[in-house]
């Protein structure tokens, strides 16, 4: 045997193939849907980042997707803020889904500009667990602001937008399109890995 070679020196230039890379650490923000968690690279929602939900029409299942996460966060004592929701959150249903209503706050905003401002303030403050918003006419710049605010406040941000926006690029860390028939989720983009080609079937 010759001289002792430090193993780091061999591995550092990356000339040695090491097989399967280490599995990414289990996510700390699971979505609550096992099928979806399995295909997402971070094992759940990307932490401290903006996630985009793209829906063809209102009321297609965006709450079904979010409720397990919101229930988990609110039970952990985190605050959940809905900024300018398109409809009224109906307390009996939210409570049935397991969301602690005492941690739920709704912010009314007159214009979409005010709504974006309020969302950014909530995200940046770092005092909320999750912030949900419905930007209708948000451009790339506005979404980037939300993404940066989510990162600086270390908060989960969810933007629900019409499916037509899927054509345009977006700075969001995760984009999920919700299909009605067949009932499925399509991951369009996820940071930290290739988007899975197969859609994930969902209940309902």
């Amino acid at each position, binding site marked *: 045997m010759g001289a002792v070679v430090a193993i780091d020196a061999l591995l550092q230039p990356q000339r040695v193939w090491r097989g399967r890379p280490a599995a990414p650490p289990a996510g700390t923000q699971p979505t609550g849907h096992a099928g979806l968690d399995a295909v997402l690279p971070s094992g759940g929602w990307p932490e401290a980042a903006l996630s985009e939900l793209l829906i063809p029409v209102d009321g297609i299942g965006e709450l079904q997707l979010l409720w397990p996460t919101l229930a988990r966060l609110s039970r952990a004592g985190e605050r959940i803020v809905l900024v300018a929701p398109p409809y009224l959150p*109906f*307390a009996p249903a939210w409570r049935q889904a397991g969301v602690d209503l005492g941690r*739920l706050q*709704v912010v009314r905003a007159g214009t979409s500009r005010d709504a974006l401002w309020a969302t950014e303030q909530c995200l940046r403050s770092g005092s909320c667990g999750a912030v949900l918003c419905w930007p209708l006419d948000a451009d790339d710049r506005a979404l980037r602001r939300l993404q940066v605010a989510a990162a600086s*406040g270390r908060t989960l941000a969810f933007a629900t937008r019409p499916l037509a926006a899927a054509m345009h690029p977006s700075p969001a860390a995760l984009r999920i399109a919700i299909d*009605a028939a067949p009932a499925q989720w399509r991951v369009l983009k996820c940071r930290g890995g290739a988007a899975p080609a197969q859609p994930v079937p969902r209940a309902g």
Partner: protein
Amino acid sequence: MRWACILLPHLALDGVLRRCADPDAPRVLVGGSAQRRMLHAVNPAARALGLRRGMALTAAQALARGFATEAYRPEEEARWQRFLAAWAYGYSSQVSLQFPHALMLEIQGSLGLFGPWPRFEARLREELAALGFRHRIVAAPNPVAARVLANQHDGLAIEGDAPMRRALGQLPIQRAGFVPDVATAFARMGLRTLRQVWALPRDGLARRFPAEVLRHLDALLGERELALESYRPPDRFDLRIELGHEAESSQALLFPLKRLIADLAAFLAGRDGGVQRFDLLLEHERGARARVPVGLLTPERDAALLFELARGRLEQVQLTAPVRAIALGAAELPPFAPVHRELFDPRPQQATPWEQLRERLRARLGEDAVHGVQQHADHRPECASLSPPDVPARREHSSTGVAPGPRPGWLLAKPIPLRGSAPHLLAGPERIESGWWDGGDVRRDYYVVQLASGQGAWVFRPVSGGGFMLHGWFA
């Protein structure tokens, strides 16, 4: 060393200067009768022009030009003294305004909390400088000695009777706190310092001079206790700033607003209280005063936060006429309870607390922009979900937890007619019939349907007849 005297030699002038945007410009206070206007006080820039206190205004105008004049108002001076007493009340429970232009503080009891006297004194000086008041501070075993020594010294701290006797003994007779007649009489007797007065026989003094003189001499040495009247902080805060010019936009009001808020915060800190609601009053040349209420959900006392909130409210105000003066009134001063924070916070350091964020949102979006969601025991969907702005969490009845049928996550604020092709029925009907007692009578059959687009909808048909109405989404 039981008493500290904070002498405020330029109280009236400082009170005027601190509301000026440019305090270095020459400025004088004018007092006296209308026939003979005299300079009551001059600032350093005016002094550099050759103006002196006690000069007639006409003489001053002949001597220099380009200085601003301001009327001297004794009631303003008294108000500033009270304001500073409120500030000092944060450092001592015994504050007295008995002597004009001075604050007397009992400090023996405060030394344990605010550290040794040099550090305590430095803190007082720093805050007074920040508030914009020139001052001299002297500490002595009794209040009268402290007050009299402040005439001559600054930063003197005397501990014990012998050093006090020595310091007082060297005091010139003119500055020993006697009324002018008595001081002149002593001077004509050839007495220069207080020590020479002490050397005089007591019965002779009693015969020649009024009784106050002996009383004052005894009080100086602490041989006679003087009962000082204690200051008691008021239960409301009022402050008014006259602008001296006409402000056309709310931007121009921000500087005086900042001063008002800073004073309010100093007052609150002294009182160990917070403010829940205050009013900004904008006074115009004529017409009613505009009132800008600023309401908070929890008591606050941080100057920066209060300023930001007040600014948010003020910027939304449309000024109908130029503003001459701005006032701040706060009647609701509840006790302040600091927010409980975790020692190891998982959130980043710069995190804004929710209370502060909520006030910021309300300041821009409106008073009722932020609200919670609460379930209410009512069968009518419109009434089952309350959104109170700030209702404390109520005792929830066990019965409210059980909804008799499926309930949608989104509710439309107002039901709309369902359009399109005939929906596919999933569940129903569920009759909801309630509310005959309060006029909101509802008799409906609810169905869960699936629309052609794949949406799950909650629709109803009034029992009295009519088409399907859309009331919610099973999102």
